[in-house]
């Protein structure tokens, strides 16, 4: 199925959880925030939240800034 990840279309397997997505992206050991369709997903829900086709997923982290 297809989701939108950080503004770009991406193919993921059905029932992919947030944990699984972060592992696939090799981001699971980083400090990130995850938003799915405008809802911020708390860390303790990463295992249980499953992505659906068409979901808009944003993965954010700390970048340089003043």
């Amino acid at each position, binding site marked *: 199925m297809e989701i939108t990840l*950080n*503004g770009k279309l991406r193919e993921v397997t059905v029932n992919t959880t947030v944990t699984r997505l972060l592992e696939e*992206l090799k981001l699971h050991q980083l400090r*990130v925030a995850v938003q799915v369709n405008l809802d*911020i997903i708390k860390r303790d829900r990463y295992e249980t939240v499953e992505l659906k086709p068409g979901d808009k997923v944003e*993965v954010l982290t*700390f970048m340089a800034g*003043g």
Partner: protein
Amino acid sequence: MHGHGPLKIGGIELHSRLIVGTGKYPDFPTMQKALEASGTDMVTVAVRRVNLDRTQESLLDYIDLKRYTLLPNTAGCYSADEAVKYSRLAREVGMSNLVKLEVIGDQRTLFPDNEELLKATKILVKDGFIVMPYTNDDPIMAKKLEDAGAAAVMPLGAPIGSGLGIRNPHNIAIILQMIQVPIIVDAGVGTASDAAIAMELGADGVLMNTAIAGAKDPVKMAEAMRKAVEAGHLAYLAGRIPKKSYASASTTMEGMIE
């Protein structure tokens, strides 16, 4: 009283009165050295989309989290709702409640939208955040932010990145008299004397980014800023002499030959 004792913001004690941004450095190693030279123990960061290319280095590879407290900002937010959203995202990334709250009202000047800023401050304080709002050098606004529960108030010296220095020292002085929470002069510093002036006025600290990152030698400028902040703070504590229109001899006339 401002400037006396250690600087505490929302229960966090800072040893350095200089807060430094992580943006605009030529490269991460230079930033790392500059942060070290500045003596800071709090650095600002932004919240942005993660780089999905994991072969590239990331900012956090260059920031020792045991040494520096991260202060996430809401740079680029133009409404209270957006700033609240970014604060909550920052909390998820950083697992802390600190936020440098920016709600910008105009792209060219980057002046704050104080109406939205106050609105966002109220929401975030209720939500348990330690809110450090970036605001104008307006004493009334500073008071409203303090009353709304801001942990510190951060008036600008001049527009962000302008390097124009402390344009209205009198307003900063009035803010210091009116407000109990720490006052951090944020934005506008161009060189070391600007930082010293802010501290001589009695500010609790100074936050800067471009003045260091954009200098020809950011590491040297970071050291200059550390010294300027310390010197200005010491001068404030020491208590300067009053200004007079005429000379007052340092050497006595007594003992001169007739």
